[in-house]
Structure formats: C-alpha cells, structure tokens
C-alpha cells in the first residue's frame, strides 16, 4: 500500500509524542543524571563519571541476575510456545457457545492483576493450606517447601509463569489457525495428507506471523518480569529467583543507592533497546511479508 508523503501528519502524532516524551525522556534523563553522580543528599553530590557503570558491569550479582534472566526467558519460550500451539490445536474450529466459553476461560488469567497472580499461587502452593502444596507433600510424599529450596522456588515461578501467559500464546496461535480457509483442509483431505503433514505444511506456515509476535512478546515481557515472582518468592531463597527488575528495585528503593541504580537502569535499558530493535525488524517484516 502506497502512502502519501505529508509532513502535516506530525500534527496528528504530536499529542502521543508529547505524552510519551513527558513520561519517558524526562525520567530517562533523570536516571542518566543519577548514574554519573554520587548523591549523599540533594545538596551534596559529586560527579563520578563512569564509576558506577564500571562497578555495575563487574558486579557479580548483576551478572548472576542477568544469566538467571536469560535462562528464565529461554525456558519460558521453550515451554509456552509448544504448549500454546498444542492447546490452540485442540480448540474447536467452529464458533459456538463452547468456543466462546473456551476463549473467555483461557483469557481469564491475562486479566488478573499481577500481584493477585502471585497471591493466587502463594495460596495454591502453601504446604498447609494450598491445594497443590498439600497434594505434593501429603499425597506424593515429596517434601515441598518452595520458600526455602531454590530449585523448588524456580519450579514454582515457572509454573506460575506458564499458567499465566501460555493462554496468550494459545489465543494468538488460535487466531492464526482460524484464518486458514476451509478449502486448504479440503485440498489436504483430497490429497490424503496425514494430520502431521497438515500441521507441518498448512497450519504451521499460516501461524508463522502470529507465532513470531508471540515469541517476541513473551521474550520481552518475561525479561521485565517483577511483580509475580516478587509476591511469590520475594527473589529468594537467597538470590535464587532474583531477576533483573527485582534486583534493580532492591538497589533503587531498598538500598536507595541512586547512582548504582541509575547505571544499572541504563545498562538494562540498552539491553532492552537492542532486543527491541530486532523485534521491530522482525515484526515489520512479518507485517508486510504475509498480508492476507
């Protein structure tokens, strides 16, 4: 589609630009300002240059948190994408009451405030009052106490994350499936194609665009995760579930170390920026490449 060149379009964009600039450029500049100073109180501050950056880059806790973050986001993708596609494949293809009900139920976890998600899982996993915690401890006879055992804390956070966000992948994949015309399936039936062939050569290619969006959305959002694991584990036991955002908030508001938090923020933001760029490239291609 050819667009007309018209710079007056800036007038239409201006309100958005002003609002977002107000909320992003001023705070970002504030953070940059913090990141090069040592602040004792508003009246006493010393310019320290790149000192905080050097400290944060060599900070082993930050590096640990970063690796933890990558492992977490990687696991999220590995589990949620195949699971979401599998669920979408089981969903009814025709519209009707069952379909509506399924859609509403599947979308429900997406609309729960993030700290309530944490609360739900705290209640669900408690060994004394939680259904799952009690079940694992009493019926399976495995000692399950996620607040003290790191590996169990990880499993708990993953379970919560998969429970919370797989519906998003399922919904997107389902929308992709719905866009396949019936004629494709009829042609496949005439050719005697197996279920697997239909999946591989019809369904998967048609889901490509939406799955791309699902992968990138899930990667980004899991990279920023804060509230849910904070409520569930508080980043513990020890630092075992301290992801980047949790660590950053700990430094910024817990220790009130604005200089280091500022440097951390900028590093974090740059990582995000790099990924956003890749995201944007892929997305604009997916948008133009497969127009139906």
């Amino acid at each position, binding site marked *: 589609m050819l667009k007309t060149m018209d710079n007056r379009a800036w007038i239409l964009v201006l309100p958005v630009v002003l609002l977002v600039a107000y909320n992003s450029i001023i705070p970002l500049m504030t*953070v940059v300002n913090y990141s090069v100073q040592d602040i004792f109180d508003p009246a006493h501050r010393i310019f320290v240059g790149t000192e905080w950056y050097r400290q944060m880059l060599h900070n082993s806790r930050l590096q640990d948190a970063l690796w933890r973050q990558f492992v977490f986001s990687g696991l999220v993708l590995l589990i949620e994408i195949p699971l979401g596609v599998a669920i979408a*494949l089981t969903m009814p293809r025709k519209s009707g009451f069952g379909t509506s009900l399924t859609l509403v139920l599947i979308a429900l976890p997406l609309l729960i405030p993030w700290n309530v998600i944490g609360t*739900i899982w705290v209640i*669900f996993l408690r060994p004394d009052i939680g259904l799952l915690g009690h079940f694992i401890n009493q019926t399976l006879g495995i000692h399950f106490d996620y607040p003290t055992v790191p590996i169990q804390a990880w499993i708990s956070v993953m379970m919560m994350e998969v429970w919370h966000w797989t519906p998003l992948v399922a919904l997107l994949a389902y929308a992709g499936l719905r866009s396949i015309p019936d004629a494709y399936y009829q042609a496949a039936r005439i050719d005697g194609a197996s279920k697997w062939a239909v999946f591989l050569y019809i369904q998967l290619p048609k889901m490509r665009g939406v799955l791309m969006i699902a992968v990138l959305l899930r990667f980004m959002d899991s990279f*920023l995760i*804060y*509230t849910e694991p904070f409520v569930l584990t508080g980043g513990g036991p020890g630092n075992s579930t301290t992801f980047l*955002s949790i660590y950053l*908030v700990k430094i910024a508001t817990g220790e009130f170390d604005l200089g280091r938090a500022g440097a951390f923020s900028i590093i974090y933001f740059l990582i995000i920026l790099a990924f956003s760029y890749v995201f944007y490239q892929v997305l604009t291609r997916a948008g133009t490449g497969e127009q139906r």
Partner: protein
Amino acid sequence: MRIQMRTLGLIVYLIVLMLPIYWMLNMSLRENTDIMSRLALFPHDPTFQNYVKIFTDPGWYMGYVNSISYVTMNTVICLVAALPAAYAFSRFRFIGDKHLFFWLLTNRMAPPAVFLVPFFQLYTTIGMLDTYTAVALAHTLFNLPLAVWILEGFMSGVPRQIDETAFIDGYSLPRFFVTVFIPLIRAGVGVTAFFCFMFSWVELLFARTLTVTQAKPIAVVMTRTVSASGLDWGLLAAAGMLTIVPGALVIYFVRNYIAKGFALGRV
C-alpha cells in the same frame, strides 16, 4: 475418536487452568480460622463475611473505586491521543515516521523498574503525587504505544479508497474521521480500549509508587491483610476474587478480537 481426544485434552487443560482460581474462590468463602485448621476441597460452611467486610469498609472498597478511576482515565487519554496518531502512521509517510514508531515501541518494552524513582520525583515536583491523573498519565508510557500499534494494525486493514472517496465527496478530515472512519474500525477501537484497560488494571509497580493514600489502587490495599495475627487468607482471597470480576466481564465482549489485539491488529 480423534475429535474426542482433542476435546478431552482441552477440557483437562481448562480444568488445570481454573484450579488455582477455584482454590482462591474456595478460600474467599471460608473464615480464616477454618482455613488454617484443615484442608477442604470445597467450603463446607460457606460464608460471605470476607466480601461483606470489603464492601462495608471504605478502606477496602475505595481501593476498587481508585483503580477503576485511573484505569478509565488512562483508557480515555490513550484512545483520544492514539486515534489520530495511528491514522497518521497508517496513511502518511512523514519525516522520521519509522524512527518515531520504533521509539514508541521501545517505551512499550522499557522496564518499569527503571522509571520508579524518577517517576516519583517527577510527579512529586509537579504536585500530582497521589492523584488519579498521576497514575493515568504514568500508565500512558506503555499503553499509548500499544494503542497506537493496535489501532494502526486495524486501520491498515481499511482500504485507502474509502478515504479518497470520502474526500472527493467533500468530507473534511475531522468529519470523515469521526463519522466514517471510526465506525469502520469500531472493533479495533473496542479492542484497544480493552487492552488499555487491561494493562492499566494489572499494573502495580507505578500505581504503588505514585500513590500514598488518596488514590491507592486495590492491588496495593491488598497488602493490608497482614496483621499481628498473621495473614488473613480469607480476606486476601476475597479481595483477589473481586479484582478478577471487571476483567471477566469485559473479556466477554472482545472474546473474538482479543487475539487480534495481542497480534497488534495483524492477524
């Protein structure tokens, strides 16, 4: 047989999906002493006292009023600002359009944790701390880019010929936009409103930082249930159940479009 296996799989998944929510519902209908004394698969002696407490104590129900106020405000701001912007992106090329779109995108992806302290200082300086406006404005940081994106996706699906025909017929841009174009993409507007509502509703970090007492959202009020005698699980569960209700209500209306919204209007 094949179909039955599929449906069975789906039903199992839905049950697993609903279990944690059911468990919270179960808790919310029991008293705290009852919860702590034994594990029960369903409330033997259901009581609504937790809900009654929330609906009669202003400290509690004002949390919902506050949340809904700033969420509504945010949705309105986002729609009003994003509609013309999305139109500009979908119809015109202009200097810096691609860069601008990318810059908007980076804000959707920015870690909220980065903005906590600066936001607190910024909104304190302009004297807006602890108001609905502060939270509504802060939430535009991630909701506006999203709204522009989704709307742009929907708008690009409308053929340009419609615009051209309308202009030949003598419509001015504003009149065409309001009377012809917006009705054409009303599904997109609905979905966008839903997404702004949703992301503002589920967000906690900004809302917690920017409020003290007057505008405190329900998600923050919920942390009050810790008392000297420990957590009041029943009350906490009831408050949690009530936060699900608004979402569950609006989701029904956009159920067929929700995926299109997540795909930024590009399914």
